[in-house]
């Protein structure tokens, strides 16, 4: 450890503190992990002394941050997170691995802002806001109007939202502790994190659900959307689910599709799965919607979901590309091609080895 007698201020204490506080780690816990004293951590955060590089690297690992997070001032994460997770859980009780995901999401948002600023291509947010008195159907229609897609299936919701200025990333959430997380950040703008472990249809639903929280101004939301909908869910969750349903499964067009398929009141799992695939939602989301529209028998969806065999599908795009999204990948490659970032930085941003990053740039240049 070094006393700060030099003029330079390389490691920023407030950044160390911010990273620790987001994970709700105490000074004692961090001191124990690093095998240093409680006072050492205080002194680092107050910039009275400085950790050596190995200690700083350990802190970066512990906090889920890049080293450079501690070397410059960065935007603060949301002060308050509304926890809408699994019943009986609280934000404080979530394991450290789960909380680190929030830090990694923050790092992805920070990186995307950095690259956009280097390219002078900051995202312009064109997402409408709605009053809490606005009905979910009105909100869904408002969104469909700005996408200009009438009542067609919204298979490309992520790209459409990214074009409207929303940052969207996917990361595997340990223990499937939550489905989505969203905030409207003063610097990053509206941002959404989805559980990469969920199926495509489920991720699409979660995305629509989180967008509803954003446009209703529900605050930073960490949500667990159960596989089987809880009819008695809290008001805000219920409302976000309703917006998602109205947005992804508009009644008129859905009814037309249902009758065109000549389905009975008790369709098979396969028939529902085919229809769900067309609409870009999970079987259960579609099933509940059809039940509510009185097109299929009540409780049929729950029976199907409980007995449904799982068919894991191989994603078409590489995992890293799917999780980071097209927009982030494109701006990262553009920043590299224009010599704003190094090959190492590109590889790190895309979470792939440098060799692979160089190959991808070469392939795209052909």
């Amino acid at each position, binding site marked *: 450890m070094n006393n700060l007698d030099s003029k330079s201020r390389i490691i920023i204490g407030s950044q160390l503190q911010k990273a620790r506080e987001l994970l709700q780690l105490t000074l004692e816990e961090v001191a124990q992990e690093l095998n240093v004293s409680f006072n050492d951590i205080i002194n680092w955060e107050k910039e009275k002394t400085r950790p*050596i*590089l190995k200690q700083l690297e350990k802190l970066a690992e512990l906090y889920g941050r890049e080293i450079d997070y501690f*070397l410059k001032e960065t935007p603060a994460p949301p002060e308050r997170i509304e926890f809408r997770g699994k019943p009986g859980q609280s934000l404080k009780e979530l394991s450290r691995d789960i909380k680190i995901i929030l830090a990694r999401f923050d790092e992805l948002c920070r990186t995307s802002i950095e690259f956009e600023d280097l390219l002078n291509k900051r995202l312009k947010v064109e997402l409408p806001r709605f009053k809490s008195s606005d009905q979910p159907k009105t909100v869904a229609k408002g969104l469909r109007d700005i996408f200009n897609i009438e009542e067609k299936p919204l298979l490309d919701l992520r790209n459409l939202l990214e074009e409207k200025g929303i940052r969207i990333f996917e990361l595997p959430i340990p223990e499937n502790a939550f489905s989505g997380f969203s905030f409207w950040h003063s610097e990053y703008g509206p941002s959404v994190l989805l559980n990469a472990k969920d199926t495509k249809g489920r991720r699409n639903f979660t995305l629509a659900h989180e967008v509803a929280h954003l446009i209703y101004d529900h605050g930073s939301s960490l949500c667990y959307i159960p596989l089987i909908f809880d009819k008695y869910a809290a008001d805000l969750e219920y409302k976000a689910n309703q917006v998602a349903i109205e947005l992804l499964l508009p009644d008129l067009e859905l009814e037309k599709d249902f009758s065109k398929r000549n389905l009975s009141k008790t369709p098979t799992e396969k028939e529902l799965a085919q229809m769900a695939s067309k609409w870009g939602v999970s079987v259960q989301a579609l099933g509940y919607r059809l039940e509510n529209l009185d097109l299929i028998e009540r409780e049929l969806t729950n029976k199907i979901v409980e007995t449904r065999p799982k068919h894991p599908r191989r994603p078409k795009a590489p995992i890293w590309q799917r999780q980071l999204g097209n927009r982030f990948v494109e701006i990262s490659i553009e920043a590299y091609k224009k*010599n704003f970032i*190094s*090959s*190492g*930085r590109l590889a790190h941003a895309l979470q792939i080895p440098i*060799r692979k990053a160089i190959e991808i740039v070469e392939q795209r240049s052909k």
Partner: protein
Amino acid sequence: MDINRDLFQYVLDSSSLINIERNRKISHLRNRKGAIIIPEKVAVEVNMPNSPLHRLISRYPFIVHPFQNYEEEEEYLKIRGQSGIDDGEAAAIALASKRNLPLVIDDKMGKMKAENHGIETLSWQDFIFRG
């Protein structure tokens, strides 16, 4: 081995090491093992299992250099905090700068940063064929 050439030492960055590997010139690195310095953070980036660079590093671990003192670490952190740069490039520039050695680097962004630090830079071809 060219004795005159190996009087000098060179720091190598990931971008150049990968180019040397892709162009099947690892034997040149083997022949000049006394002249090359691979910063530890660069080694982490290029050391993929079963790759020719992995075999080189495993056989001659002394070519991998960690930071030797606080000044090198501090220089690394100063460079790492700059926009657009990552661990390997920052470590390579810091070592070349503090040890006053030329840097073999092909990454354009890293090369610009290094030259701004007053470091002499070479491409992988310069190092292999003319260095």
